[in-house]
């Protein structure tokens, strides 16, 4: 440590120099836009007279009225609830499946593991838009094999793109696309557990199920926290899947998710000020949810260590 501190002046400036490109990009594409969004969210346009001519439209201070409007707007709240319902399906199912598949891959004498691992990981390579598009067609009665089978069996054909089933249809796309990536993250940390740990457990008479529940799952807890964390962020920001399904059904509105509402207000209506306030609110909720989750996860691990 003392050795590392004895550096020349060049070495002292070096890290700052190395971080310069990241710093400039961060200022231009993160700090500046966020600052601008905050500024916009606190302003509104005031129209004088007929709104014609130079100086007739001017930006004036609006205080928190944009936020108050956004918070009392029913459609934004409805979108937030829709995303909440969607996340309540996606996150447990996706991470549950990812953990299950990772544990199965790590089971003794399982066959075809490399093939199945690659197959389950494959959807990660497929863009969300294309995934939504593929599943969208599989949900369409005219072209779907599922409807064909149901038809032959004489069973009723549900409308997957409307009402409650729409949530399942959308969730399925996210589960399909995300399970493999999370499985790999969990599986990789499973493989990093030293073999001696299992041998000791086996000598003590642990069954594979007990090993999975009592040893494997607790030891991959950090990976589970990481996958949870990224899943929460991704879910709150769902945009491309419902947008892609929109042309196939009338049940997905242009304001289905909060992000779609922001887009609609900014570019559909041209009301940048309300859009900025909504975007800031979404960011605050995302940050609160992420930090709240990390905090809870941290205190849980600390408790676990203390035991």
């Amino acid at each position, binding site marked *: 440590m003392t050795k590392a501190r004895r550096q020349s002046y060049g070495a002292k400036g070096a890290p700052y120099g190395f971080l310069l490109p990241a710093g400039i990009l961060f200022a231009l594409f993160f700090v500046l836009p966020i600052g601008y969004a905050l500024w916009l969210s606190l302003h509104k346009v005031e129209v004088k007279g007929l709104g014609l001519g130079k100086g007739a439209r001017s930006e004036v201070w609006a205080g928190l009225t944009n936020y108050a409007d956004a918070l009392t707007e029913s459609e934004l709240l409805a979108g937030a609830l829709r995303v909440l319902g969607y996340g309540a399906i996606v996150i447990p199912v996706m991470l549950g499946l990812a953990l299950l598949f990772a544990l199965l891959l790590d089971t003794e004498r399982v066959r075809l593991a490399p093939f199945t691992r690659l197959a389950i990981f494959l959807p990660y390579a497929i863009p969300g838009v294309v995934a939504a598009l593929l599943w969208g067609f599989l949900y369409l009665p005219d072209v779907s094999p599922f409807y064909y089978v149901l038809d032959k069996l004489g069973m009723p054909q549900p409308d997957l793109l409307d009402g409650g089933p729409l949530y399942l249809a959308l969730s399925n796309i996210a589960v399909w696309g995300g399970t493999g990536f999370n499985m790999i993250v969990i599986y990789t940390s499973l493989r990093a557990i030293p073999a001696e740990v*299992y041998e000791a457990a086996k000598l003590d008479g642990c069954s594979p199920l007990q090993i*999975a529940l009592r040893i494997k799952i607790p030891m991959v807890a950090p990976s589970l926290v990481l996958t949870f964390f990224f899943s929460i962020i991704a879910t709150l920001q769902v945009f491309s899947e419902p947008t892609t399904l929109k042309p196939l059904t009338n049940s997905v509105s242009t304001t289905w998710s909060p992000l779609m509402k922001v887009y609609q207000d900014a570019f559909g209506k041209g009301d940048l000020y309300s859009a900025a306030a909504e975007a800031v609110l979404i960011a605050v909720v995302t940050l609160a949810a992420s930090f709240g989750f990390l905090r809870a996860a941290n205190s849980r691990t600390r408790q676990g260590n203390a035991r």
Partner: protein
Amino acid sequence: MSAPHAPVSPSASATRKSAPAAGTTPGTAQGPPLRRRIALVPTAALLLGALYCLLPVLWVVIAATKSGSELFSTFTFWPGTGFTQNVKDLSAYRDGVYWQWMANSAFYAGIGALLSTAVSAISGYALAIYRFRGRETVFNVLMAGVLMPPVILAVPQYLLLAKADLTDSYASVLLPLILSPYGVYLARIYAAAAVPADVVEAGRMDGASEWRIFLRVALPMMVPGLVTVFLFQFVAIWNNFLLPYIMLSDDEKFPITLGLFTLLEQGSNTPALYTLVITGALLAVVPLIALFLVIQRFWSLDLLSGAVKS
């Protein structure tokens, strides 16, 4: 996709005593060990998972072979006769704009990931190797960037780029994606694990400049991790939809995701375009799947879980 740094798991060792599967054979845990060679239930469950993941891909492969009329009239998993015609129609659509979209995606993802990896590498190296004032602050501020919803960034980014007269340009999709907080995070983990402090110190003793030490000594050591960062960025940019959706209006500059989306939007009015959308979707996933199969060996996926062995 195997993890080269992870130790071999006990499943490779020749223990044949335990029950074949976790939680699949109740009663055998304490009872006599079953001597089966294959863990049947786990294998079957994994195959089921694989089938679920491959099914839509299989469907699009078959659907792309159908002509417009076959798509709605024949059994969905029965191949049609129209594949070459579909590809011809797709290529002819608006003077081959489809292939322009593919080229654009390759450009955005290729150049974007390369620049992004370079910035991640140098930032991650600086954060991992040097002890300097404000290091943790810089890192934490960068990481907060991961949490920023793309839309809170994208809308004002659009307005700012509009002021610089840069919207609807290749730069408007490329520039905002160069700095990736997650890429910096990965590069930092990897640099900390792969570049020993002694080696950097030895370079200094030899009188090499800090820049030269980074380029000649540290960078080669970081290559396996940087391949992962590159691939991660490549996939992220290739799959990106929101930013080009907001930034671009000229469809000659669209990436493939946005192109297919607009095609689908038009297709909902004219079902004749469905075959084009389906064929286009198939051809759009082929390059990425091929890329995956070819370079999966070079992925060091343990990096993604933060489980790098030091």
